[in-house]
């Protein structure tokens, strides 16, 4: 073997080792922590929990008991309703805001910082704000009592703690609109405004320009941001727990109730709930992405 070839092989090997070194840390976390937890969760939901003295693996009775009850499907409906409605509202508001941000308006520099504020505030604080402002006995109800619109803070219309979920949706939208805006704004900056201007010169109306030029351009931003916030919304626990309407609860809250019950055998039922959430979220997100890929291939993007 010529010395040149040996050197090249050595270089290749070095590169490959370097690549593995780059990939390894994240891969370890994913496989060991996430993968391990997932495998254990599935095993527990199928009856493997020797530390509670339960070992009937494999046993589908926990899923059967869970899915056999009408309240599970009601809860699933509620979970999806909160997740979808808040994602849609955040998306529409985010697009409008992002489109405004690429144009010039007075005070834009300040506004550019202002709209990102909710991104830096934790969800729990947002939930606390909702309780303080919108609750019965909150600021708004007390103000209304003060000016004499109602006799008693408890007569204030119930925004929180109802199955319409206005409180939950408000917190999600408040927190997620800036995120959607940020993503779409970045995409808009990347594509520039030339195509829009060209469309305008060629005589396209405003709505034609939006639906046929701008929307396809920002679609990757829409897909990635809605994917992330929807995945969060479907699995989030705090907001529906604190602001939700009580029984029937959303699925993550049900899982928590099972885990928190003094009866240990219910933990396996809780695991079955968690695995169900993961399965449902996985199926929805996968379908969503697959449809988008098909659309991309159709329009010739790869």
């Amino acid at each position, binding site marked *: 073997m010529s010395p040149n070839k040996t050197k090249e092989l050595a270089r290749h090997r070095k590169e490959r080792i370097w690549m593995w070194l780059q990939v390894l840390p994240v891969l370890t976390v994913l496989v060991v922590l996430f993968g391990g937890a997932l495998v254990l*969760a599935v095993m527990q939901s199928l009856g493997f929990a020797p*530390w509670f003295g339960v070992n009937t693996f494999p046993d589908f009775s926990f899923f059967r008991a869970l899915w056999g009850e009408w309240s599970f499907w009601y809860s699933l409906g509620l979970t999806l309703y909160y997740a979808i409605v808040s994602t849609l509202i955040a998306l529409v508001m985010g697009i409008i805001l992002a489109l405004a941000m690429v144009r010039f308006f007075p005070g834009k520099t300040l506004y550019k910082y202002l709209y990102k504020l909710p991104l830096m505030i934790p969800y729990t604080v947002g939930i606390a704000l909702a309780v303080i402002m919108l609750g019965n*006995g909150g600021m708004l109800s007390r103000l209304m009592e003060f000016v004499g619109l109602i006799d008693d803070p408890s007569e204030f219309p119930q925004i929180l703690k109802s199955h319409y979920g206005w409180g939950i949706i408000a917190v999600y939208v408040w927190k997620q609109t800036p995120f959607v805006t940020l993503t779409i704004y970045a995409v808009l900056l990347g594509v520039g405004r030339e195509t829009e201007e060209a469309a305008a010169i060629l005589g396209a109306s405003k709505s034609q320009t939006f639906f046929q030029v701008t929307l396809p351009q920002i679609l990757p931003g829409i897909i990635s941001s809605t994917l992330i916030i929807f995945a969060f919304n479907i699995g989030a626990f705090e907001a529906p727990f604190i602001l939700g309407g009580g*029984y029937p609860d959303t699925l993550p809250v049900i899982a928590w109730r099972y885990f*928190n019950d003094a009866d240990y055998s219910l933990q396996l039922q809780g695991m079955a709930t968690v695995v169900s959430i993961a399965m449902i979220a996985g199926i929805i997100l996968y379908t969503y992405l697959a449809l988008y890929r098909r659309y991309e291939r159709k329009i010739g993007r790869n």
Partner: protein
Amino acid sequence: MKHTLISLSVTASMLGSLAMAENVEANNFRDGFLKGDVTWADVETRAKSEGTVNLYYWGGSDPINIWMDQIVTADLAKLGVTLNPVRITGTKDAIDLVLAEKGSGKGLGEGSVDAIWLNGENFATLKRQDALFGAFADKMPNSKFIEWNAEDPRSLLNLRDFGVETGAAEAPWSGEQYVCAINTARVDKAEAPSTFEGLQAYLTTNPGKFTYVKPPHYIGNTFVQSAIYAHNPDGTGAAALQAPIGEIGAEEFARLITPGIEYLKNLEPLLLGGQKGNARYPEDNAALDGMFLNGEVDFACKFGLYAVATGLNNGTYPEGAEGFVFPEGNMIKNKNYLAIPSNAPNPAAAMVMANYMTSVEAQTSKLKFTGMPPGVDPWKLDEAQVQALTAASPGLVGVTQAELDANTAPDTNATLVDVIEATWLEYIERDSSDDIATIVARAVENLK
């Protein structure tokens, strides 16, 4: 997620620890102490060498946290023990941890929980899983302040925790009674109901002005229990509900609780939000206190002999709040305790801490700072000690000690509480179409 992680670590450590030998030295210490071969001076010496005590307790109350940090930490430091207060949101988290570590083969001297503030089902779980250190509570010097003589009926609260025999495996720390408060700024005290029938009548004219904490929270369970006592078809009240479910039997138990559960079912449309078909049950104390403070409800019930005085003091109760007697003859009284798990890493330090906690000094400062009533028994104290406790008490508002004593009822057996919880969830929350007997039978079967 947390549970997944716990279970994950359990499995991981299970593999590692199968071959690990039990901590022989710590086990010898325990056996010696329980047999009486180890003197208290030896315990104190060992506690100093252990150095730290990890006390797991519900950290949702600022006054308790401040008291722990400012008083207990300083006093224990004088005994050579550093207090590590681990504040948890639910006592069950600590039980989970103990059982998970026990499952992974960690024995005495090897776990991470030294002591837990608990009672009721959580103690029953530890006992059932054989995860307790042993009968230490009657062997501490300060156990002289506690009535252990079974012939004295007043010893019941020390010997039985929710009907489960304590076996001195937990030290009484505080004694509480379930007391309801009325907002006299909104309701005339003369209108305060004293029976469940009175409550229903009041709510019929003032719908929505009452609610109770949602079971399975113990504050909610207790309300349900007192309703069951008051509606006991035999008229025997609490007495019929002291034996474990195995002795009573599902059928008989269902018969005993049916009138009480039916009453609560009928009450539901009259509760807060019930007029719109969606009764609102607060998740915990804090949520209920908020509703009471905001005038959403006129009455609020919880464990808290001195809750009204404390609440008025720190502004969590409305200004017109006063205690009142409800329900007559069925105001449940119980104690809460400090237990040492079987895999405590520092058992001697845990006992020194428990001994300190049962001292009159600690009981007095606890009462003064947190409004938690004493867990020691007043008839076992001398005059000066009783005086100190009386002086530290925030005082009763609207009720007298004699009224409270006259209306006392014991807690329900812990094994029954699980069934009551399950029945409430099924029959009232989930609005099941099955009858109570069927639901009880199913719950009993599931809990086996």
